[in-house]
Each structure stands twice: as C-alpha cells, then as structure tokens.
C-alpha cells in the first residue's frame, strides 16, 4: 500500500509543472455551466419549473455534476495504456514491482487529488459569478452517501478505462472506441442533461447500469433529491466495481502474452 501512496504523491507533485493543464481542466468545467445557463436560462424565462427543477436547482445540478465529472480523469489511464502498448513502452509498467492497475490508479488518484482543490475553488467562483442560490442539501447522510457513491463511481470509471486500455493488446487500434465511449459516457452519466428529463422506462433501465451512479445520482443526492435511491445506488455501483475486478484480472493476464514490446 505504501508504494502506491508514494506513486500518488509523485503524481500529485508532478501536476505543479503542468499549470496550463490545470487552467484548461477548469475551463472544461465551465463550458457545461455556460451551456446550462444559456439554454436553461432561456427556458426558465417563460416557466418556473421543468421536471421538478427550478432554475437554481438546475444550475446547482450542473455545478455539482460538472465538479464530479472534472474529478474523473480515468480516460488518461486508458489513453496511456493504449499509446504505450502501441509504441512498445508499456514494458515499464510490467517490470516495476507493483500491479499495473494499482500503479495507474495511484497515478490518476494523485492527479485527481491535485485538481480537487482547484475544482472546488472553480465551483465556488461559478456560483458567485452566475449569482446562483446554490441548492445543496444539509442532510449529512445524503452528503456522505453521495461522496461514497461518487468515489465508487470514479473507481468504476478507472476500471472501465483500464479494461479498454487492455484491449489494445488484442485490437491495437482502440482510440476510436475510447472516443465513442467518451461521447456516450457524457450523456449516460447525466453530464449533458439531468437524466430525470428522460422517459421513466429509460431511467429504470439506466438504474441497472453503473453510469447512473457515477455523476448523476451523487449530484442529485447533493442537491437534496432522490434520497430513497441512496442505499440501492451504493449497492449497485459496488457490485459493478466488484464484478470488474476479476474481469480486468482475467483479461490482463490473458491478453498481456500478446505484447511484444517493440511497438506497432
């Protein structure tokens, strides 16, 4: 465990070098809030409520979900694996005395920990800038549950991207799938629009998938809604995380034999 903590610390410190990346990461967060304030500002100009949301709760939702999705840096893991396997430099992960998933996970966690402070500051700035009456719950149970669910969601996203990265051993050219996955994930995690706007049968189907619990449900819980789904949500996302552990182990052990270390 200590070695992963060291990797996390190094990754955290290394972020200080890439100051522009921090700025762009913060800018990515603001685009969704601009989108929300422009589109929903116009819609709420002629009505006071849409699907149970007021303008304030809608903008609060976007600020929270934008904050949570900015914390998900797991696609870096998938991309790192893909490019290193392709150019033959993945060998370094195979020879270090640490599990590949643990190494990459600790690296991503280090980056996420670094961005946490900046994302929090950015969220406060957007609340002040857009003069939003920020609607966050005062229920401690909902807050703790939402944070636990969001943490499990981040682990799941890391597992998913790691899995896609592993597939490079077999398919070599998976960047296309990664980009399509990014497009779909943006929608199914509720980063583009709250999933509450979708028809009920679609929402019911989405409850079975892990993406519902990555950004959407934690954001809803933090603005004080969907409290009845807290326990079932934590259980479902935990089951998905548990299911991906043997899947990733098996896939990695099976496919890594194809790696030749010379690049493609």
């Amino acid at each position, binding site marked *: 465990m200590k070695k992963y903590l060291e990797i996390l610390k190094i990754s955290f410190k290394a972020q200080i070098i890439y100051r*522009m*990346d921090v*700025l*762009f990461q913060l*800018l*990515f967060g603001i*685009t*969704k809030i*601009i*989108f929300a304030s*422009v*589109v929903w500002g*116009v*819609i709420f100009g002629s*009505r006071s409520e*849409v*699907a149970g949301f007021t303008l304030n709760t809608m903008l609060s939702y976007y600020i929270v979900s934008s904050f949570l999705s900015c914390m998900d840096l797991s696609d870096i893991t998938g991309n790192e694996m893909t490019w290193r396997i392709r150019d033959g430099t993945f060998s370094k992960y195979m020879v270090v005395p640490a599990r590949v998933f643990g190494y990459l996970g600790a690296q991503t966690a280090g980056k996420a920990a670094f961005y946490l402070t900046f994302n929090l500051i950015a969220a406060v700035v957007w609340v002040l800038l857009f003069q939003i009456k920020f609607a966050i719950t005062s229920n401690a149970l909902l807050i703790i549950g939402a944070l636990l669910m969001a943490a499990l969601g981040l682990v799941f996203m890391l597992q998913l991207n790691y899995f896609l990265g592993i597939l490079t051993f077999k*398919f070599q*050219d998976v*960047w*296309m799938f990664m*980009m*399509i996955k990014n*497009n*779909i994930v*943006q*929608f199914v995690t509720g980063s*583009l*629009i709250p999933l509450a*706007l*979708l*028809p009920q049968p679609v929402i019911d189907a989405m409850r079975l998938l892990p993406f519902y619990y990555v950004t959407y449900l934690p954001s809803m819980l933090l603005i004080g809604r969907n409290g009845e789904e807290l326990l079932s949500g934590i259980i479902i996302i935990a089951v998905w995380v548990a299911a991906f552990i043997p899947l990733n182990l098996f896939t990695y052990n099976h496919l890594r034999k194809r790696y030749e270390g010379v690049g493609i």
Partner: protein
Amino acid sequence: MRQLRVIKTLIKLRLSNLMVFRLSFFGAFLIDGSMFALQLVMFNTIYSQVDSIGGWSRGEVVIFIGTFSMINALNMLIYFFGINDLPQRILDGRLDHYLTKPGSPLLRLTFESVDIGSIPLVLGSIGIIAYGVSLAGITLTAGKVAAYIVMVLLMTLLWYDVELILRCIPFFVISAGGITQLEQFIELCFKVPGVLFKGVFKVLFYFVLPYGVMATVPTQLLAGTLTPGGLCYAVFIAALFTALALGLWRLGVKNYKSASS
C-alpha cells in the same frame, strides 16, 4: 488548373495511406456520428419538456444540429486532419518539408489529409437536415436550397479560418500545448444555437470567436428567419476571418525559424 492537379494527387496519396488502417477508416464518422446522435437525443429530451427554446421550434433545432454536423463533416472530410497537426510541425521543424517544396505549403497542408471515411457523416447530416425540414414544415425551393448550400460552404470556410488562426499561434510563442484543448473547450459552446447567446457571450461567440454564427445562420436561412443584416454580417465575418487567417499564416511563415522555433 495546376492547383487542382496537385489536390487530386494529394487525395490519391491519402487514399492509399488510409487503406492501411482499415479499422480507423470510418473513425471520424463513428466518433462524430455518435456525438451528433447524442446531441439530437439531448435536445429531443429537452423538447419533451418544453415547446420552444428561445423561439426556436424542435424542427429548427434539428436543422441546426444537422447543419452543425454537416459543417463538421466537411471540416473532417477536407482539411481537419491536414491542419490539425500544424502546431507540432512548427515546433519540431517538420514544416520545412512543406516550405521547401514547390507549390503552396498551405494548399498542401489543407488537402493532403482528406478523410474519405467522413463521407457517411455528410450523408447522415443531410438526413438530419431533411428530418428537421419536415418537422418544421418548411417548404423548400431550389433557390433556398442553393442559398443554404452556399452559406454552409461559407461557414465551413469560416471554421477553417478560425482553426488556422488558432494553429498559427505557435509561430509566435514557444509552447503549442493547450491550443487543441482550448479549441475543444470553445467548440462545446458551438453546440448551442447562436440566437440563445446574450450579452458578453453574444459578443464572444458572434465576433471574437464566431462559432455562434456558423450553424445558426444557415439554419435561419433555411427557416426563412434570417434578416438581411444577419446575412450581410455572416458574409462580412467570413471575409474578415479569411483575410485574418491568410495574413497570420504569411506573417507566421516569415517568423518561422525552422527546427529551432
């Protein structure tokens, strides 16, 4: 005529290259196709709750998404993969290969990476636009369709100009990092119909970085809501940015210091 022959040769060379990576052949189509399909679903979901957004009906927004998709498809098909890598070429000196060869380096950069795999995206965009037209109940005339096509091409040129301007920055600064990231950030705002922007965002996305004009103006033209002032503004901004992009390219090439840039 000579330039056309050059373009034809570049396309032939590119096609041979594309055939090597068959899985990636339809990459742009699948990636951008999924993006626009989700944008359609997103606005469809919003319209299930409201009747109009800023006076735009569901049909008009579908035309807007189709137009955005069409401009993006033409961007991918013709020039994106050619000029996308320009900042890196400036930094590592690979631009030398273009400057030392006979012919226009910008012409070669623009047309050397044509992506035939994006053609299905053009066809898909036509389908989305046709669906939007039927939803909005717009009666099409030959003149209106011709004017729409000209406007889409003009807006594709405008997008090219903005992309080129952003990619010329490394001629004058040391680091090129973040330019494409910055562009991705700005392009997210392109997904919003320009008529919805107010105040500072209107100035930003109608004049400074005119992404708000690109898909909005052709949509308004097809829907019959474009004012003569709006039409003149679109033509003016496309001409202005073309002049700016070419001027900046020429200035950049003069400033280029080969591999030590």
